[in-house]
């Protein structure tokens, strides 16, 4: 089948998609966007977290056909067109929240979504929002720092997404 959708603001067409493929497979293997990661492919780890019509989803749990006509945003669409990093990306680098980095794309998407909803999250808010994103390297301490820093910088600049 053919799947047509908008990914990071660009119209994309994937041909010869087998009906059993996930949106994650289509993004990674058919559209050349491997930023969303494939760590468990059963919705447990959050490494493939993307935005589907604004909603935070695990792309591995979305059948490719469900993406027809959808507006999709992946980690590849976070930075500005000129390459300037998104504040959340910047904060993850500045705090050492990236080690192996396999969980990072999903955590960036989830953090961005959290700060859209809750600009000044408490620690409990952060933990609740990121509970679906596993990280095996950092013990989450630097990730907590990154989210706090991103929130503080957003408040400091008055930025609103």
């Amino acid at each position, binding site marked *: 089948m053919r799947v047509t959708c908008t990914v990071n603001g660009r119209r994309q067409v994937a041909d010869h998609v087998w009906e059993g493929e996930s949106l994650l497979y289509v993004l*990674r293997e058919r559209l050349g966007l*491997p930023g969303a*990661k494939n760590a468990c492919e059963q919705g447990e780890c959050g490494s493939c977290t993307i935005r589907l019509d604004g909603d935070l989803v695990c792309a591995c749990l979305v059948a490719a056909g469900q993406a027809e006509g959808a507006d999709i945003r992946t980690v590849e669409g976070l930075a500005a067109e000129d390459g300037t990093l998104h504040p959340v990306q910047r904060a993850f680098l500045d705090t050492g929240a990236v080690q192996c980095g396999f969980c990072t794309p999903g955590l960036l998407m989830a953090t961005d979504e959290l700060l859209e909803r809750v600009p000044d999250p408490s620690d409990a808010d952060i933990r609740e929002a990121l509970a679906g994103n596993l990280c095996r390297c950092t013990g989450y301490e630097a990730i907590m720092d990154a989210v706090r820093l991103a929130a503080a910088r957003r408040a400091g600049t008055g930025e609103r997404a």
Partner: protein
Amino acid sequence: MTIGPGALSQRSDRDTTGGIGESTQRPDGHLKVTGEFAYSSDLWHDDMLWGHTLRSPHPHAAIRRVDLTAALALPGVHAVLTHHDLPAATHYGLEFTDQPVLAQDVVRYQGEPVALVAADHPETARRAAALIAVDYDERPLVHDESSATAPGAPVLHPGRTDHHAAHVPHPNIVHRQPIRHGDVAAARARAEVVVRGEYEVGMQDQAFLGPESGLAVPAADGGVDLYVATQWLHVDQRQLAPVLGLPAEKVRLTLSGVGGAFGAREDLSMQAHACLLALRTGRPVKMVYDREQSFFGHVHRHPAKLAYEHGALRDGTLLYVTCRIVLDGGAYASSSPAVVGNAASLGLGPYEVPHADIEALALYTNNPPCGAMRGFGAVQACFAYESQMDKLAAELGLDPVELRRRNAMRQGTVMPTGQPVDSPAPVAELLARVAARPLPPERPWADPAGPTAAPDLRELPGGLSNTSHGEGIVRGVGYAVGIKNVGFSEGFDDYSTARVRLEVVGGEPVAVVHTAAAEVGQGGVTVQAQIARTELGVTHVTLLPADTTVGSAGSTSASRQTYMTGGAVKHACEAVREAVLARARARFGTAAALEAGKVVAADGEVLATLAEVLGEEPVEIEREFRHRPTEPFHPRTGQGRGHVQYSFCAHRAVVEVDTDLGLVKVVELAAAQDVGKALNPRAVAGQIHGGSAQGLGLAVLEEIVVGPDGRVRNPSFTDYLIPTILDVPGMPLDILELADDHAPYGLRGAGEAPTLSATPAIVAAIRQATGLPLRRVPVRPEHLTGTA
């Protein structure tokens, strides 16, 4: 063709300017936050096929017949291979060559690879594998010490020829290491207090997030290029070349992006299989394990049963310890012999123990093979000896920290192996640091608005499941400290190689660093660049991709890469610096140092820019670096200077337990660790935090459950639980820097020690909260509610 292993081949100076001691940013960080970093599962090649592995459903069975007809007939299938198709060597292994590339007439564990498929779509490959008809004849299995060593037990590897075969008491024992230290019988006669305990550690999984994966590309010269996530390129190459029937130079490996490792990538997984399929089909072959394949496709942490006896005087002074540590190595040897050596030699913990009888051994069973995981034999022992120290403290009515302080090892202490500890061992200091921290506030769920306000459920055990509003919750505090060796031990020729070139690019001096060290997330690339800046006084450092065109770096394991590859980069840089200074002296008659891109005299006078002195002639030098030699442990007495360096970490855990439901919330996990010298403080903190979280997982969550039938019950992230951000609390740190004069910059390997003591500290806290004896990890709800 798009292959992305050269993720680090660009200049690394985009965000970093600093030398050692600074928390410079990762050179690969920008690529990792933009999604551009090419992990091994992201690789792609025109015309590539997808490989898939068919695995045994049985833990022990004879293979009667394999029928490939239906699989080969499936459209899109390009090859189906069994052991009949192997071109050369049929077995491989890290220490013993005992593991079949593909099973021949027998399978020895559930998940053992039996056949391979290459197809044009991963789902086609999976379906073809399901069409392979294998006729198995199940055999009796061995699953623990008594079944493995019973009279008439099936011998899993008859006719062993490995170097431990002659010393083992039974052919189903991979390796056994006794250690005899002092005179236990005499000490026992003087003991005023004796405590005994039996402990058990479940099978933990490394559970890295990036699955086993890679891309094998057949080459025009008949060889193969393999782009892969591994911990040690050259040991993969050493095992692959005989299996492929190729000379080593035709088996070229390049590291692609590694999504975590923690020991699980030290053994081969898909490497040989992808290469075999690529060489058979003449097409590039990509293999990516799904999570279930991953659980079956790599070794795990050895589950262990440990029996300890501690004898002491009334004042707490330890007189003797005896222990017996039985590790389940599973179906193949992997690194079990070295794990046994660690468990035995580190089995007493970081304490002064004048007399000891120690025995550690690993079994061959039909359980999943076990091998390297962060902590490597020291984790299991630490849970047991620290549980014993708490038991002894309770028996004596002493504070557990005070008992540990009285017996703490220090510089000069002699290990049970007879090896003196010849660098700082601040065990008492680390414990004092964590003990001195203020405790986190009581009842953190209570609303400050008053006792009638609704509690914040998120701060309670059970969280938003709304299982408690504070009733039935008890708090406990526990302490533990551990000792881990750094580097490869027991006489292994452990070295790393670095090639460093200093050249002028665009008018600026640039250091080009090439090693084969596997960057697995820990930040080795960051510190290599920092070292080059410090030693050569440059800003710009280029890190070439890690591959087999440069000498071995050894493994990214044993907390060794900053010490070893850092040491190699340092030595190569020093040689380059000397060559540049010699060139400058020939020109100026003097030259003493390289600073900030300048060549300076002893009095600090700038003689020339580095770019001027280098001109069109780069300086390139390769150096190998070795740590101090070690000795094997004597097979009967265990005596020998077997270790290079020791690493120490202490934890204090605060937990809250819902005693009605058996739910545990770790409220805080404080750590103190000596790292000798923090080359990158932020990266060191990341290692301690990450290691502590894995220790938390072993304490209360993580276990691969294997039934007595040898079958794995939970090979998924749905059923194997690794800590989430809700499970891991704040982890305040104290980082000490007490130099080890034998090591580069005085540094001490840091990655593993925090994994040891986190587990027993948490369990000690749960014991204090509940009064339960708790002798097994992970602690499960049923252990706390009495419903087990």
